[in-house]
């Protein structure tokens, strides 16, 4: 018999679930070592039910939105529920089993209520390094996943609360800074334990059956709200195509194509017509594609609707076999998460603009401008600095874009200049808006950023940047934003244009100039 659940209790339970994921995030952030977690908030925490349906997620970074669900789903495929025990923790990062790119390491723990597996808590954190060819595990150029770091399929790292030492040792033997990794793993585990503790408290308060009924009801409510919010979505098929500048190895454009079809209140998002798997690292695992699609639909709906499995129930995603959005081993993927994801959003929004011409903005910068600089300092110690740089966002029907900000699939913070100049042999010469780089239009796209970095010692500079060849599109007659530019100024003052993806040696006192793309304009300027 299903118990009647009153609205008040339901509202309270919803808030409690959200709060548990927030608290998990707090624990993870405070205790972690990787700058990506503690400074840039590149992590997520979530609660799932025993069917791997999302119940609540702490919202830190959009690119994890669908990926959390994929990894939970893959884990229960690998580990039938009867093989999971209390206080087990499964670790994974393989992009072929629910991961995104290798530095993103997922932890998942089953939560038993009254002796029965009832929930999963999980989190994902971007680690500073997970081995592979280059420090930071995000090589600018790679053609096999093996170059990008250690691949961890779903395996138990803790069994009934006890560390599986063999697995831990194997992982630590393959990464660059063992102690730091260990610290981060501990932080991830501490966050899961906190989540588990809170879920048990909640189950004691309400009793399990009641709580699960409430969760079912909450998912149904989100589904209902999703449907009613998108009731004005016209029936039909909307298509859009855009390109990546490069396949990661050569300057060969790569096509991403989408068809969004609405019929009978259901949405089919098909990537038929997208280019096949690439030799470079632009391939994006399915979980990243899910994140992009969910991000776009999440942004279309009111923020007060709860983020849970119900919200996405009426979206079907079709990814053709063998295309770059369903890479097969040993495809390289390190850029899929950070660059291809932005282009997937661009094509999704481009298609939606035909359904909602007044609602959808022009393209934003469409890249995260990943820079990794490394070398050896005066004492011979190895150092690595990783950063992503904001740009312009697209203008909309009623607003200008904004300048120098992260858009769409990322929202990570920058590293303070004073912090990085103290830590690394680098000097920042300029960090400002890139004037007049936003697309012209009735409404103007946001401007990009100019960041000039001088290497004080010989260094290696690895770039993963996009929109260097094809600019972010404008809409309704608005002009595109300016393309990004990467330059090297040599000691003798010569300017060399660097390709979007490159690994280049810089001598001491040579300078890197990054000019990030502007957002597209909206409407013809009269």
């Amino acid at each position, binding site marked *: 018999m299903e118990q009647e659940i009153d*609205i008040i209790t*339901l509202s309270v339970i919803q808030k409690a679930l959200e709060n548990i994921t927030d608290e998990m995030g707090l624990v993870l952030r405070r205790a972690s070592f990787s700058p990506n977690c503690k400074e840039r908030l590149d992590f997520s925490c979530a609660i799932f039910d025993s069917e791997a349906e999302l119940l609540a997620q702490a919202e830190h970074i959009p690119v994890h939105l669908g990926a959390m669900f994929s990894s939970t789903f893959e884990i229960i495929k690998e580990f039938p529920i009867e093989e999971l025990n209390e206080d087990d923790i499964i670790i994974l990062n393989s992009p072929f089993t629910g991961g995104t790119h290798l530095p993103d390491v997922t932890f998942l723990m089953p939560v038993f209520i009254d002796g029965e597996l009832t929930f999963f808590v999980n989190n994902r954190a971007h680690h500073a390094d997970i081995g592979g060819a280059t420090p930071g595990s995000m090589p600018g150029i790679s053609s096999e996943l093996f170059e990008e770091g250690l691949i961890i399929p779903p395996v138990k790292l803790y069994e009934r609360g006890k560390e599986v030492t063999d697995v831990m040792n194997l992982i630590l033997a393959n990464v660059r800074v063992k102690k730091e990794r260990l610290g981060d793993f501990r932080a991830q585990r501490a966050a899961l334990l906190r989540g588990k503790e809170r879920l048990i408290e909640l189950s004691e308060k309400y009793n399990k059956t009641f709580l699960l009924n409430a969760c079912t009801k909450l998912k149904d409510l989100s589904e209902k709200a999703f449907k009613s919010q998108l009731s004005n979505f016209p029936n039909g098929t909307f298509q859009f195509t855009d390109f990546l500048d490069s396949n990661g190895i050569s300057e060969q454009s790569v096509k991403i194509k989408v068809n969004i079809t609405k019929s009978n209140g259901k949405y089919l998002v098909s990537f038929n017509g997208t280019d096949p798997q690439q030799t470079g690292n632009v391939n994006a695992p399915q979980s990243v594609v899910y994140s992009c699609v969910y991000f776009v639909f999440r942004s279309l709906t009111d*923020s007060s609707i709860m983020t849970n499995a119900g919200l996405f129930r009426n979206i079907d995603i079709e990814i053709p076999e063998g295309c770059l959005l369903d890479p097969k081993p040993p495809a390289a993927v390190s850029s899929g998460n950070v660059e291809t994801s932005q282009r997937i959003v661009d094509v999704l929004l481009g298609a939606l603009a035909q359904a909602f011409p007044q609602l959808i903005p022009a393209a934003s910068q469409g890249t995260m401008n990943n820079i990794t600089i490394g070398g050896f300092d005066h004492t011979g110690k190895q150092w690595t600095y990783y950063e992503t740089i904001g740009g312009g966002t697209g203008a909309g029907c009623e607003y200008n874009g904004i300048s120098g900000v992260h858009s769409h699939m990322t929202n990570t*913070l920058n590293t*303070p200049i*004073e*912090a990085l100049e103290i830590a690394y042999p680098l000097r920042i010469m300029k960090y*400002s808006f890139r004037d007049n780089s936003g697309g012209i239009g009735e409404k103007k796209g946001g401007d990009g950023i100019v960041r000039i970095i001088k290497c004080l010692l010989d260094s290696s500079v690895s770039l993963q940047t996009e929109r260097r060849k094809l600019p972010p599109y404008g809409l309704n007659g608005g002009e595109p934003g300016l393309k990004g530019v990467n330059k090297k100024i040599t000691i003798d003052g010569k300017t060399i244009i660097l390709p979007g993806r490159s690994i280049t040696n810089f001598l001491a006192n040579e300078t890197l100039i990054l000019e990030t793309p502007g957002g597209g304009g909206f409407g013809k300027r009269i």
Partner: protein
Amino acid sequence: MKCLGIDIGGTFTDLIIVDDDRNVILNKVSSTPEDQSIGVQNGLQKLGESALSNLNVLVHGTTVATNAILERKGARTCLITTEGFSDLIEIGRQDRINLYSLTPERTPPLIPRELRFGVKERVDAKGNILVPLDSLDIEKIKEKILQEKVESIAISLLFSFFNSKHEDLISKRIKETYPSLHVSSSSFVLPIFREYERTATTVLDAYVAPIMRNYFDSFYNKVKNQGIDTPPLVLLSTGGVTQMKNAAEKSVETVLSGLAGGVLGGLYSCNELQISNALTLDIGGTSTDVANIVNGKIEISTDNVIGNYPLNIPAIAVQTIGAGGGSIARFEHGILRVGPESAGAEPGPACYNRNGTNPTVTDANLVRGLLNPDYFCGGSIKIFPDKAKQVISLLNNDLNFNTIEECAAGIIEIYENNIALALRKVSTEKGYDSRNFTLIAFGGAGGLSACSLGDRLSMTSVVIPPYPGVWSAYGLLTADIRHDLSTSILKPLNQISYEELDLAFNDLAQQGIKLCIEDGFSSKDVLVAKQLDVRLVGQSHELRVPYYGQLETISLSFDKVHEQAYGYSSPEEPREVVNIRVSAMVPLPKFSLPTLPEGDSNSEKAKIGVRKVFLKDNFIKAAIYNKSLLYANDIIKGPSIIEQADSTTLVNEGWYAEVKSDGHLLLKKE
């Protein structure tokens, strides 16, 4: 000794006078947001000459700076930065506020681009001058200042906390030409590394400085006109006080002044009742402020935010959420939400009958019978139960409860749940077990939810201060003189010599002592506390440890704090000193509250009636007591209601209240 506290809130300006003979005079007048000093004048006039005669101390808590920032009504300010970095204040940390939105947003900076100027100069990460300051650039900026009618100037150059020469020079040159303009230098306001946060805090200082100077002048004049000649003290965000003329030098320190009084009031209650661990809860009309007191100490944080702008100077760690008597209930996507939107003072809850159409928490409490329509705010505000019933019943059309009372109880359930989550953030989520804490509840709406919130956090004792509605104002009178100073060191611990560290600490201590002397005290009155911000090399969040004048103890203290914060320590890892901090304090004399006559636990004399109230899911009869008729040691068993002019307390079923001799109510779970 006689002291006056003046606390200004969004709705009311509260005044309280206390003297050595334990006389207390309270007064509440409407706030005057356009010029808060007018409300002060009204309040003083209402108190009358004799009440104000022979006043020794006047302490003021203000929200003028807070409001100037939130409403973007500060001075026309310009910003001078290192060339190439003048957009930094707008770029911020490159993030947007709303993660999932087609229209990303960023809080616009307080200084528009046309008022941000770069100068050719550069200091490196060791404090060496790489590029000397360009005089010509300063001349050009001086012209701009005139052209653009700039009223206040913020200067923040890279690495100025290591070498302030260029900032000092610019400041000097501008002051020579425009002696009347205010100049805030980052090396003075916050000589701490991380350029965005330092610049943003310096901008806030420049932005509010002229406003605060005017306000302090006008406050001082109005107070003087009432015959008060003691120099007014103003409450700082740290909970310390200083003379207004000192506060005007670094007005950014008053930005969270309005939040600090309540926590000080809570600390006073703790001291009186010998409570060492407590959560303070101040529920007002639009917001609720919660904070923790651990081992008798208030938590100070340097990681603060106001209106999305970072404010990295020390302030009492207060968590504020949008929940209060005016919070609006609405039904959305199948879920009932209460707050953060508030009906505010205008139009106010529907029951105020000022054209408010939204159901609020106050309306719900009125429908439940918890508020006395004839004695709301001591009878000064007339409230209409019919209006409340009307709006709640309209909401109930969507919710389908059997009765509107059930609907009202539902609104309160959500509202109290939100507050309970905020209380958890300052207790359980920081690793403190709320069961060992006492809840100190005040503010106009604190008493009604106190027991219920205690239950939600498994707390078994709750304290209601004697004057809950003006407890923030009373808190002002418990503050001490305090000045906080800090500077960045950024050096590995094993490379720092004792002499070097001591010199740096002494420099800060001397500055602090000087400020205390300016407040009218002698250097021997001053107590100095020293702390360091330390982290492991490779970490980016610092932990604060005390400094006892020995290098060896730093590492040990750090390991202990690290263990407590993160669950483990790493004694073998190298650590670095990031900042050093000094607090210079002068304790001020404290007061006692009037004592009540001794009673014999029988509270019958104070019982003024019985009312039907809706608790949980049914109507019950609750006895109503008049607070002013209660004696010390009286016991009141729940369910009952204790009414007083400035607040209403609900003693829930299963709880009882004990009246303390100074008027505190100690509520305990049976």
